C-alpha cells in the first residue's frame, strides 16, 4: 500500500533523508530503528506532510497515488495518521470538539454522514473502554497539562477514533515508564488488523517486545542500511548501533 522510492528530504538546506526505499504491504507492521539523528522522525513527518521539510527527490506512492502531492489534511482524509513524538498542546479546544471535528471532516471527504454529538460520545466511550483510558480525558483541552504518558495515550485514542489505514508512530515509547509503555502498546496492538498497516519509529528495541513487528529496518545517516525480520531488533539490542556504523563505514551494507 505504501511505496517509498529514493526519497530525499532537507530542512534549512541540510539533507536529512538521502535516498529512502521502503515497501509496506497491507496489514504489515514495520519498525524503523536507528540512532539519534539518523532521520527516523523526519521520515515520519515527511509522510504526514510537514512543510518544514522539503522533498528534493524521489517519490511516495500510497494506494497508487502520489502522496507528496497531497496536503497534510488530504493525507489524513486518505487514511494516514501520525502519532506525534511531541503532541501539541492546544489550550481552549476540548479533546471532544477537536476529535469530532476531525472525524466529521474525514467522514465528509469519504461521502459519509456527519456523526452527531451524542453518537460521538458513545463511540468515544467505547474506544476509551477498549484502550482502558479515563473518560475525563475527553473534556480536557487537547494535551494541555497532560503528562508525557497521557499525551501518548491521547495519540493512540485519536488513532482509535479516526481508524487510519496507515498509522505512523513516532517514538511513541519515548519517556514512558514500563507500565505506561505496556498500556500504549496494548492500545496499538488492539488496533492491528489485516486492513491497517503500521510504521513504528523507535530508538529502543524495548517497545518491540510489546508491539512485535513483521519487519525491522535500520536507518542510518538518512538511508535504510539494513532490513530484516523481528530478530534484527534483538540483534541491535545486544550489539548496539556501533557495529552498524563500522559496517557502513567499511561499505559492507548496501
Amino acid at each position: 500500500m505504501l511505496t517509498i522510492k529514493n526519497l530525499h528530504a532537507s530542512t534549512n538546506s541540510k539533507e536529512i533523508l538521502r535516498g529512502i526505499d521502503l515497501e509496506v504491504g497491507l496489514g504489515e507492521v514495520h519498525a524503523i530503528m536507528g540512532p539519534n539523528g539518523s532521520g527516523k522522525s523526519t521520515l515520519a513527518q515527511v509522510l504526514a506532510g510537514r512543510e518544514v521539510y522539503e522533498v528534493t527527490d524521489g517519490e511516495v506512492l500510497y494506494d497508487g497515488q502520489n502522496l507528496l502531492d497531497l496536503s497534510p489534511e488530504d493525507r489524513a482524509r486518505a487514511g494516514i495518521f501520525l502519532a506525534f513524538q511531541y503532541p501539541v498542546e492546544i489550550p481552549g479546544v476540548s479533546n471532544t470538539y477537536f476529535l469530532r471535528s476531525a472525524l466529521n471532516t474525514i467522514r465528509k471527504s469519504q461521502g459519509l454522514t456527519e456523526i452527531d454529538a451524542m453518537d460521538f460520545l458513545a463511540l468515544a466511550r467505547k474506544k476509551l473502554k477498549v484502550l482502558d483510558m479515563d473518560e475525563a480525558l475527553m473534556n480536557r483541552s487537547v494535551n494541555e497539562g497532560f503528562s508525557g504518558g497521557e499525551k501518548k495515550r491521547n495519540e493512540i485514542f485519536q488513532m482509535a477514533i479516526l481508524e487510519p489505514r496507515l498509522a505512523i508512530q513516532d517514538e511513541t515509547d519515548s519517556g514512558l515508564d514500563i507500565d505506561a509503555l505496556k498500556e500504549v502498546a496494548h492500545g496499538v496492538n488492539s488496533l492491528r488488523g489485516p486492513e491497517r498497516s503500521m510504521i513504528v519509529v523507535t530508538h529502543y528495541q524495548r517497545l518491540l517486545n510489546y508491539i512485535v513487528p513483521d519487519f525491522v529496518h535500520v536507518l542510518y545517516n538518512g538511508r535504510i542500511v539494513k532490513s530484516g525480520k523481528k530478530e534484527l531488533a534483538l540483534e541491535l539490542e545486544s550489539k548496539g548501533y556501533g557495529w552498524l556504523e563500522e559496517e557502513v563505514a567499511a561499505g559492507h551494507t548496501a
Partner: protein
Amino acid sequence: MTAVKDYQGTYLAQFQAHEKDHAAGPGWLAEVRRAAIHRFAELGFPTTKDEEWKYTNVAPIAQVPFQPVAAASATATAESLAWSCFFELDCPRLVFVNGHYSPGISFLAGLPKGVTATRLAKAVSAGTPALEQHLARYADLQNSAFTALNTALMQDGGFIEIPRGAVVEKPIYLLYVSTGDGGPTISSPRTLILAGRECQATVIEGHIGFGEGTYFSNAVTEIVADENAVIEYSKLHQESRTASHVGTVRVEQARSSNVTTHSFSFGGALIREDLNAVLNGEGAEAQLNGLYLMTARQHIDHHTTLDHAQPHCASRELYKGVLDGQAAGVFNGRVIVRKDAQKTDSKQSNKNLLLSEEAVINTKPQLEIFADDVKCTHGATIGQVDQEAIFYLRSRGIGISEARKILTFAFANDIIDRVKFAPLRDRLRDALFQSLAKRSRKEPA
C-alpha cells in the same frame, strides 16, 4: 491651538442651548456642567502629540460637527434591532435610542424589591439624593476632554442603585442604540451604578449601532462599589462600521469589594475605551478582562489604569486582541501601586493575535510602584497563530482555514468563558463565530 479646523465651538453652542432650555438640571448639576464645559473649552480635543493619545487620531471626531438627535426622531423597534445578537438577553433592560429613553422596548419586570434601575433623567428630576453625592464625582473631567464633554452635554442614561445586602440574580441590561439616521449625530450616554454594602449584581452595558450614517457615541460610566459589594460589569461594542465611540469607565472600590469588568469589542470604526479602577479600600479585588476583534480599517485603543491606593488589594487583568486586515490596536495598561498599598498582588497581561501582514498593535503595559512589599507582574505578547498547532490539526484531517478558525476561536473564547451569565456567553460566542466566518470567507479556498 490646533492647526486643523475642529468643531469644538459646535459643542459650546449646544451647551448654551441646553442652559437656555433649562435642561441643565438642578443647581448642583448645572454647576458641575458649567465647570465641565469650561474645562472642555480649555482642553480642546486631544492630538497625537498628547502622550495618552499618541496612537489614536481623533480627527474623525474633532473634524465633524456632530449634532444631538431630537427625541421625536429617536425611535427603534424590536424588529429593527433583531439583527444584533446582543438585543435579546433574557434579562431586564433599559434601552436608549440616540440618547433618548425608549420605553416601548424596555422592560424592568423581575427586579428585586428595593433595587433601582431607571433613567438618569428621571432620577435627576425626582431629586434622588445619592446623585448629588456621586454623579460626576469620580470620572476625571479635569484631564479628559471627552469626560468633560459628556458631563456638560449628558441628558440621559442608566441609573442603578442596589441597596445594602441585595442579591440581584439576573443582570440589569443597559442598551444604548445608535441608528445613524440624520447624521452626523452625537449621543452622550451617562451611566451611574451604585452598589451598596454586601450587595451582589451584574450589569451589562451594550452599545450597538447600525445604518450608514456617521455617529459619535461619547459614553461615561461610573461604578461605585461599597464595602464587600460583588459586581460583574460587561461592556459590549457592536457599533456600526462608520461609528466612533469614546468610552470612559471609572470604578471606585471600597474595602473588600470585588469588581469584575469585561470589555468586548466587535464593531465600530474608531473606538477608545478608558477604564480606571481605584482600589480605595483594604482587601479590594478587581478583575479586568477584555477581548477585541478588529478587521478592515478598524481602530481600537484601550487605556486602563489600576490604581492600588490601599494595602492588601489584588488585581488581575487580561486583555486579548485579534486583529486582521489593516486594523490597528492600542493597549496601554497602567498599574499604579501607591506608597501605602503594601501587599499589593497584581498581574497584568495583554495578548494579541495578528492574522494579517498589515494589522498593527501598539502595546505598553506599565508598572508604577511606590510601595516596597508588593507582588506585581505584567507582560504583553504579539504573535501569529501557532504553526505547530495548525499542523497538528491538519494532520488529523482538519483543513487549514478551519484549523486557523479553531485556534483563533480558542484564543478569544478564553475571555468569553470568564463571563458568568450563560446567555451572554452564548451571544458572545455567536458574535465571535460571525466575526470569524467573515474572516475565513476572504481566504482562498
